[in-house]
């Protein structure tokens, strides 16, 4: 049977996946809104369209974070081992990486929602 998840990557960088998604989401929201408000007409004049766009970026980002979390959960052995993961073995190192990545995915998920919230409440480019 083909596995739905991609093969495991062993690297330090996977730890940063979810926060990087947060950072890109943050930048996308900020830059889009800034250009929308500074250059009327360039991205349209309808603030509702801007909010929809931000909603779209947000959903996409959340989905990416969920995927990162799934991969992390797998690296953590689907929660079969409990922390602290402090044995001097490759297995415990992997479990630690998975667990830390999973935690960061959770934080990034919440932080993305935080960032998107203003678009729920604001309805114009007030200065």
């Amino acid at each position, binding site marked *: 049977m083909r596995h739905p998840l991609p093969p495991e990557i062993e690297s330090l960088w996977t730890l940063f996946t979810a926060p990087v998604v947060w950072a890109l989401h943050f930048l996308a929201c900020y830059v889009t809104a*800034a250009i929308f408000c500074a250059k009327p007409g360039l991205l349209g004049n309808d603030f509702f369209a801007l909010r929809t766009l931000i909603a779209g970026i947000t959903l996409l980002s959340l989905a990416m974070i969920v995927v990162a979390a799934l991969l992390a959960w797998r690296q953590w052995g689907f929660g079969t081992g409990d922390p602290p993961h402090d044995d001097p073995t490759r297995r415990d190192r992997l479990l630690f990486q998975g667990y830390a990545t999973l935690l960061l995915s959770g934080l990034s998920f919440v932080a993305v929602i*935080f960032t998107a919230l203003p678009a729920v409440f604001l309805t114009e480019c007030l200065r």
Partner: protein
Amino acid sequence: MSAQPEPTRDKATEEAQLRAVWAKPTGWRYWTSVNNAQVGLWYGATAFAFMLFAGLLGLLIRAQLAVPQNDLLSAETYNQVYTLHGTVMMFLFAVPIFEAVAIFLLPPMLGARELPFPRLGAFGFWSFLIGGIFVCGSIFFGVAPNSGWFMYPPLATSEQAGIGADIWLLGLSFIEVASLAAAVELIVGIMKCRAPGMRVNLMPLFAWYLLIVAGMILFAFPPLIAGDLLFELQRMFDWPFFDPARGGDPLLWQHLFWIFGHPEVYIIFLPAIALLAMIVPTFARRPIVGYSWIVLAAVGTGFLSFGLWVHHMFATGLPQISLAFFSAASEAVAIPTAVQIFVFIATMLAGRVIFSTPMLFAMGGIAIFVMGGLTGVMVALVPFDWQAHDTYFVVAHLHYVLIGGMLFPVFAGLYYYYPLIGGKHMSDRVGRFAFWLMFAGFNITFFPMHLTGLRGMPRRVYTYPADIGWDWLNLISTMGAVVLGIGMFAVVMDVTLHRRGKPRGEVNPWNAGTLEWISEPEENWGVRSIPRIESRYPLWDQEALARQVNAGDWYLPDAKEGRRETLVTSVLDAEPEQVLRVGGTSYVTIISALTLGTVFVALTFKWWIVSLISGLAFMAAVLWWLWNGTGDIPEKDGKDIGHGISLPLYASGVKSVGWWAMFITMTGDGTAFASLVFGYFFFWTVHADFTGGIAGPGMFWPMMALALFALSWAATLAAREANRRGKLAVAWILLGSGALTSIAGCAAALAGPLTTGMDPTAHVYAAIVWTLVIWAALHGAMGGIMQLYCLARSLAGRLTARHDMELHNVALYWHFMLVTALVTFAVVGLFPEAL
């Protein structure tokens, strides 16, 4: 694996060799040492001295504000005093002290002999010292910067700012270079120089924090360097980046400054928390609870801190939706910050706490920090901030955060780690006395400022009238400051006087569990032999480890070849990969720092010729340094490090630490470049027609420059391949022609704005185009010099088919250069056409 001593070894001879190789130079040559123990100590002592100086300035501020209508200081002097107080505390104490602590502690903590680039570390220290003295000294001539520590234009670009603004910009740029050097050193050190077996799940938390902080430095400092560059171009040559009359905008400075400034707060705070993460488990007598949660907090805070910068700009009239994004992120960062506090509380609850002096400072710091965090959550809300902005409420908030989150932890660290310096202990009695004075003094000083702020007192005012309800609050603050000052003075006395003639005590008086407590303060070699680590707290869990290490039973216990060596290990599992030879004692670091320092000082006074000459001298010094001190071809391929392991002495490409250093440096460089590009688009957003009707550089020359740089890039890659196959002549031709093409590329780059007659003083569009093009051209020229350097190395036989580290590093540089050229010329050449 056990550490069995091998019978045939003559340990006494080994130890003598090792001691000789790592010996500190004596007499005045002591100052040419590059060893982490000396450099770390100097660095720390210097930062501490700057802190005391800035503390005195703080007391002057309080003395001036003690009573209404005071004229103790003149208004101009007062402006200089508070500007320097903030500047010195932030740039010359808060950031450098952690570079200092890290340089001093990391090698023994990671079980390394030395960090990978000791000379770079020493260069960083000397740069810091020279830049710091330059900036601090200015106040004695009455020319210190006087526009506040964040130097807002138009005030700071105006005539009133005087030469002080240049001193600030150039002096601090120089120190920022030192910070970037430290970041390179720390990242490579933590990733590649850990003791065998110290996998990422066993790394001391201090190292985790420092890794994140060094990464943050790479993305936070370059925007400020870019900002400084624009600022200085305006002050020196009247390029109007921040002048609205000619299309500029002062807000760009605020963006660039705070993209640096807010992460900086966390760059200061995280290492302090890192110290607590070492101290708390020791005195709770158990491993930390929630190791992974600390990693979450460090990484999470590191990232989120980059989404906060606009909360310093809530009152600048940006669209509310922009403000709201930053407000949301500012609230979100409270989550990972609080996680760390809860981890410490949990660790203390789960253990049996010993309330030693370091622990007192740690707990006091956390209590103060939490208070500052709470007011932080308040000022992160836009409506509240509009009320409190630029008042003493903010002054109170930032001092609660910085003193609680940084100064108290540093003092905790001082008391905790002092035995590692010479094996002597600080006085417990004095420590407790000082702590209570400082804790009480701090709160008496800064708590009333919340109220003065809410009563409307703006920050930075020189004096105030008597009848508006600020006077008694200010008087209380001043009295508190005196108490705080006495507390600090007690610590200073303890450090400087009390120690003399005291007998050497135990090196590990706290019975701590991490590796740095093995080190022998009398020895300069870091560790006698490099152990295999199997625990987060090896001294608690690996019995006899200290004895075996100090008896030389572990890896690399000798220095037969008379070279300073340390181990390079893999990133994730710390498997031994290479024996790295590091640089030893040398003058070249001091000479490099002096010549570069002279460049910056001479620029301040517009002594063009002096700065040109010292710039050339700096380049010569660096080339000499590289030629003689790096990329040595070893006399043999490998070395036996004991226990049946033999490792190579040379590595190139991804496996070499030099490659990583280049990668990291260029990431920082790329961030500075991105900040300039941000500036270009920023000007585009603030104007209907951002070109101001000026003709751009056209398409031909930018595209020509791009093509030439791309060719030069290709030549470099081809040269690397040719060299690898042993076709030296082909490689020489490729390198030579690559350098020529680079020079042609530089000329083509400059030809664009030159041929269309763009005048950088006329309008900001011309100024920013020139800036980008010059940036690309300078990098191209540097790339050309690197190609010629490789050519020379190859001709001299110092670069061969197998020993080709330099070529790999230069090729890596050219990858970054290609991206720089692509972005630059697409932006200046194509973007205006696309509009």
